[in-house]
């Protein structure tokens, strides 16, 4: 996992699936920072633990941006009923190759 950090921001490039272990590691790195950017280009999966962590960050008022979440991510949030609750325009980096607007 690679990351760059400043006082209140962190930019993480995940080199594996966004699962329980990754979520725990990210949570430690994020700490109390309010601007979180996650590059999920290398992730094939995003599981419920990861989604729960993202939602917690949003409840806490933190700004989260996801770059290139895998296609399965959209399926996960649809199944969990979050697709109508989350603001995907704000959440997903528009420069993503795997942007939800391109997903059928």
């Amino acid at each position, binding site marked *: 996992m690679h990351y760059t950090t400043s006082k209140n921001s962190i930019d993480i490039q995940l080199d594996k699936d966004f699962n*329980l272990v990754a979520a725990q590691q990210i949570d430690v790195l994020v700490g109390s920072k309010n601007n979180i950017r996650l590059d999920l280009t290398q992730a*094939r*999966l995003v*599981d*419920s633990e990861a989604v729960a962590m993202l*939602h917690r960050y949003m*409840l806490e008022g933190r700004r989260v941006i996801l770059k290139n979440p895998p*296609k399965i991510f959209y399926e996960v949030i649809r199944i*969990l009923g979050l697709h109508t609750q989350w603001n995907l325009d704000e959440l997903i980096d528009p420069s993503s190759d795997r942007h939800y607007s391109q997903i059928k």
Partner: protein
Amino acid sequence: MDAQLTLKARPTVIGSASDFTYKWAVNIGLTQIDATRLALAVDELVADIVQFAYPHDEEGTFDILFRHDMSRVEVTLFETGEPFDPDRHPYDRDRAMITGNFEGAGLELVRHLVDDFIFLNKGKGGKEFRLSKEIVSEHIVDILPESELRRNEPATLQGGYVLSPLKLEDAEDIAKLIYRNYGYSYPKEELYHPKKIELAMVRKEKFGVMVRTSAGEPVGYFAVMRSTDSMIGEVGEAVVSPQHRRRGLMKRMLEALIEMAQSSDMYALFGQAITVHTISQQVNQHFNFVSCALLLAEAPPVRFRAINEEYPQALSEMIEMRILQPIDIRKVYLPGRYKTILRKIYRQLGLTISEQKPNLERPAGSTLLDVDIDYEDQTADLIVRRYGNDLTIILDELLPSLREKSCNAVYLDLPLHSQETAIVVDELHELGFIFSGLMPLMHRSQDYLRMQLPFTRLDMDLIHVWSELGKAIKDLITEELYALYYVEK
């Protein structure tokens, strides 16, 4: 079974387990997206196991078993950790949104990501989480134009047939034949998919014969499916075009299959003949197949449409077997209750038995029970691999789960080479199991007593049996059925 992983219940195994699942699934033939869905389902269950199954035991382990057939992949996670009931952990979207409590979210995903998710509680025997996904491939109706599918071969040909062993190139013609003769009603869905038929041949899961006219048109197909855990084969897929029936083609094909099976060193062939009529049973008997077992409610009634008859109950099938090679003397422990009928079946099969007397009062240790679920037929096969003192306890916990999953029947195979079989049958009878028959050479070339528990009520008068031995088997089953379940005959 393709693979089995035994893993420590630690978070570090989650990624490896889902990676392996993905790769295995893709190699088996799932699309990348379906393999990803299956891998995510495994991820969710593994995450739950590592977090909750063994809270006080750092050395807790669990198993993941990977299996497939032509139509499906199945992944089973097995653990012996803390008691757990998935129904007690429902996901609540509103609660998750407001409070951030995502309890149950993992299981909610699992249910949506796979075609079938079954939780089996085996009590002290542990817990199983079964995931199943269909292998998608092109259906013959999507490959060929309607005109080609509907085209009928000339019916006036006499004697100009060519019978040959199956080749890979026959796959499309097999699917065409099945569709032309059965429409969508043939019970084996994989026979409509040329790629699946090809794969089965490449993997040597089946062998068979094709009959063509001298013009090369396919008019008949008959195949043997190799058992995955014994040197026997099932004579199970057969079709002859209506215009070419009553010309002895089915018999010619079956003769050829028997020869092929004999030269491949198979010990025996068996067939499952439906009991809506006795035609298949008569053909089998002509070729010296012997009635061994009657399986009640083996298939749902909706699948039987080939002969334009309404059949009002689940289909029952007669297992008939033909021994192909000299077989060693069978050392068996016959339960007192079924000695007479089992001796009869062995005698008619031409198998010599050496009856042993059990010297144990109760089995010791824990039971090893394989559970095989047939999602299409809605039945479950249970195989006792090793007896323990907890078999009836495990079954008591397991049966309600299977019943809830809309199983029509449960079949239980008990090893006749184990002395415990002679002792436990009476206890199983009290649990509701009745006789089904003898399954010679069925698993690892050993003989098994099959018992059964039908969950659906059956009119035994609608089950038609041809041979005298078959009638004796049916009579015994009817007697037990009425004694246990039905008030009056």
